């Protein structure tokens, strides 16, 4: 038995709106869907006439519908907006490369200009490369932090007044729930804001804030919009996944819970005595940050220094890791110098005793993990032997430096560091050949080594 459209238009209803429970036909649904977004935009005064607006476009359902609806409303209500698409290419093969094709189609369908910014260009790393470094555990942290800043940078390049994102009501309800579950009061406070952005930054607006995911998908389906729906190839965020599943289960029983959670988030007040981090400008990259150095810079530094876990966890932990790293670097340098002196001395004394070298080995072993680690990397897999073989701090330290030198080339935020390391390395250029030779020896025969050094 067909159900008539609730508006009395005479057509048969095609869907039940989760937000209101109304049964509507396609046309009445389109009208209700678009008009509600129009009211959201006008009530919150998201845009001003003449504004340039970047639509953050991923090729997924939300941003595709957002671009389509903004174009429609811009024409219907004469907002006078200059709309364009902004996409971020994280460099995830089999995922983003495909979805960008969808964005390009949006560009053609909606006649908007499209700007694509890549992680590779901005940070020197693709997500594929980052995952190869850090594994699949915390990769979403990198991706999220980098994307946030990448959008800011893209918007600055385009010179737009604001960035419109496709966050829908389900997303926001999910985020409220997540922030409650994590006790993240600062984010809880700002996650329901329809427009975010402190002074000096480009605001983000969420025109789909009150739009249900189900309606977005139905709208895209009935309008035959082309969107991309493959899950990211890397591990999905498990915690968010649970919050999402919980919410979907609740929504099934009582669809208004989505709007109610958003309402709760909006009206919840944070006690005055709770101190919240203030937003400021990162001292390195000059983009918004809640710390002296923003998360993106810390993560990047970690990647470039071969300490990919640097930005995972609390900032105090990051500082400690960095201090340890710097101390180690200094120590390595001192050791290398000392060892060179020793060697010169040894050569002068013309030492040939194996015994002496062995005792040397013990001392070297104590010199730190980093040495062993880098040697392990260098030696072709013969770990047990490696431990015994490494009886020359000089080689060891140079190897350590050599191993670190590669990623350091990628640093583009920390000029001083490049210079320092390069200088260090330059002084030892002459040793390059020796290192390689000795490295070969390392995996071949350890007995040989003592005599080599002792010559």
């Amino acid at each position, binding site marked *: 038995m067909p159900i008539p459209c609730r508006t009395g238009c005479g057509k048969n209803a095609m869907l039940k709106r989760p937000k209101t429970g109304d049964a509507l036909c396609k046309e009445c649904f389109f009208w209700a869907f678009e008009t509600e977004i129009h009211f959201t935009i006008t009530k919150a005064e998201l845009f001003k006439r003449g504004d340039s607006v970047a639509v953050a476009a991923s090729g997924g*359902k939300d941003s595709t519908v957002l671009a389509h609806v903004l174009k429609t409303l811009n024409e219907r209500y004469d907002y006078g907006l200059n709309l364009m698409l902004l996409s971020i290419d994280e460099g995830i093969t089999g995922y983003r490369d495909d*979805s960008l094709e969808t964005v390009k189609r949006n560009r053609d369908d909606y006649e908007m200009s499209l700007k694509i910014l890549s992680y590779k260009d901005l940070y020197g790393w693709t997500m594929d490369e980052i995952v190869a470094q850090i594994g699949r555990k915390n990769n979403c942290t990198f991706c999220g932090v980098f994307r946030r800043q990448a959008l800011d940078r893209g918007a600055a390049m385009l010179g737009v007044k604001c960035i419109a994102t496709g966050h829908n009501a389900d997303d926001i309800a999910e985020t409220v729930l997540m922030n409650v579950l994590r006790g993240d009061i600062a984010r809880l406070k700002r996650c329901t804001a329809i427009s975010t952005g402190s002074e000096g930054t480009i605001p983000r607006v969420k025109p789909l804030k009150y739009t249900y995911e*189900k309606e977005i998908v139905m709208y895209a*389906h009935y309008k035959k919009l082309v969107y991309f729906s493959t899950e990211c190839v890397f591990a999905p965020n498990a915690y968010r996944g649970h919050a999402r599943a919980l919410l979907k289960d609740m929504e099934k029983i009582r669809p208004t819970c989505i709007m109610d959670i958003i309402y709760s988030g909006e009206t919840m007040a944070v006690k005055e005595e709770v101190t919240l981090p203030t937003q400021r400008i990162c001292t390195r990259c000059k983009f918004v940050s809640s710390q002296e150095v923003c998360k993106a810079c810390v993560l990047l530094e970690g990647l470039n220094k071969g300490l990919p876990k640097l930005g995972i966890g609390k900032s105090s932990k990051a500082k400690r890791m960095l201090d340890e790293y710097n101390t180690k670097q200094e120590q390595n340098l001192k050791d290398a110098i000392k060892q060179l002196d020793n060697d010169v001395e040894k050569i002068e004394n013309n030492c040939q005793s194996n015994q002496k070298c062995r005792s040397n080995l013990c001392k070297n072993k104590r010199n730190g993990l980093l040495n062993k680690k880098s040697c392990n990397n260098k030696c072709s897999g013969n770990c047990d032997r490696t431990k015994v073989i490494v009886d020359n701090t000089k080689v060891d330290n140079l190897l350590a430096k050599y191993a670190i030198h590669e990623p350091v080339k990628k640093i583009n935020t920390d000029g001083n560091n490049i210079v320092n390391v390069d200088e260090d390395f330059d002084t030892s250029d002459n040793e390059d050949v020796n290192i390689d030779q000795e490295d070969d020896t390392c995996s071949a025969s350890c007995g040989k080594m003592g005599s080599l050094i002792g010559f």
Partner: protein
Amino acid sequence: MADTLKLQLQFGGGAELLFDKIKKREIELPALNKYIPDSKDNKWTIRHLLVWIKDNLLRERPELFLQGDSVRPGILVLINDADWELFGELDYELQNNDVIMFISTLHGG
């Protein structure tokens, strides 16, 4: 007398990824009492169809498509392009040549 029931199944929004990436399938269901012998009357409903899909089409990770005796919340079901919530959901009685579509809302963003 046609004992079998002809349907078209469609999968979209990422749901097709659970079904060998095939978006459209023509299927033919046997008489219900032959497939599920203890069914009371011989009428296929969406509830029965989901059992058939689980047995015949769903190869891996059924929990991404099904939950209990229904679809996983977040997967939309359309009966001849209309929301199944208007037609009694699981209890909708399938008709010959119906088009049943499953669209995931859970993928991508």
